């Protein structure tokens, strides 16, 4: 019972912060709402027995990625954009289609026979850094190494895209 209350409270916070992100006029507020959302999802990961993923979520998503977002928002000075609706029917249409997507999705979920209940106290070993590390360096060794190349390429790409040419503009 306590777990259900915990789940519902966290779900409420997650949905509220996601809506706050969507509806804030100011991009800085959106970013801060999203940080709170990521933190809430990290707590869900803890509930589901994934402590390593939860802490990765906090450091990588709520930490590194959102700091990068805030940095770019403040660097460009584009917290608020003037309202410019090129297609007036776009907003109602988008809301309608999203509602259709949501109802469709939930209806299909209720049709399925779902396997089981999620246990909220898995064994201490499940999802520990040790278990994840052993799997990463045995069965998933090649994808893990490819990931490092991907990060290198992303780093080089970001530098190439933003570097200013000598003499010229941008």
């Amino acid at each position: 019972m306590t777990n259900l209350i915990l789940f519902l409270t966290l779900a409420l916070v997650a949905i509220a912060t996601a809506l706050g992100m969507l509806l804030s006029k100011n991009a800085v507020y959106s970013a801060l709402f999203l940080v709170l959302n990521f933190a809430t999802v990290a707590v869900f990961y803890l509930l589901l027995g994934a402590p390593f993923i939860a802490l990765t979520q906090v450091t990588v998503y709520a930490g590194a990625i959102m700091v990068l977002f805030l940095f770019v928002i403040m660097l460009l000075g584009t917290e608020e954009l003037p309202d410019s609706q090129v297609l007036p029917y776009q907003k109602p249409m988008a809301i309608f289609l999203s509602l259709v997507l949501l109802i469709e999705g939930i209806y299909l979920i209720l049709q399925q026979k779902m396997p089981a209940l999620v246990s909220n106290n898995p064994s201490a070993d499940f999802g520990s850094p040790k278990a994840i590390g052993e799997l990463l360096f045995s069965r998933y060794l090649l994808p893990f190494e490819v990931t490092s190349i991907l990060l290198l390429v992303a780093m080089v790409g970001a530098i190439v895209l933003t570097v200013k040419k000598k003499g010229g503009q941008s």
Partner: protein
Amino acid sequence: MNMIPVTYYIALSAVLFTIGALGVLIRRNALIIFMSIELMLNAANLLFVAFASIYNLLDGQIFVFFIMTVAAAEVAVGLALIVAIFRTKKTIDVDQVNMLKG
């Protein structure tokens, strides 16, 4: 009772994903569109972890780890692109950015 039906997690994930998709459709600020994409990735990650927990397999969590890496790379390159667009167009309103030529 320490159990929660997995359907709840799927429904939560569906709601978060829909909010993300709605954000991509109705917001015109390129940065907020980008944040909505992150929200959708997060919804998918939540499902991966929920199912990893049901089937008692760690592979789902490894997938989340890889998705996070790809998301980090995507954010680095995407924000660099937005900065480059801002330098030439002086705006990041996606309605104003409708020409390929600078």
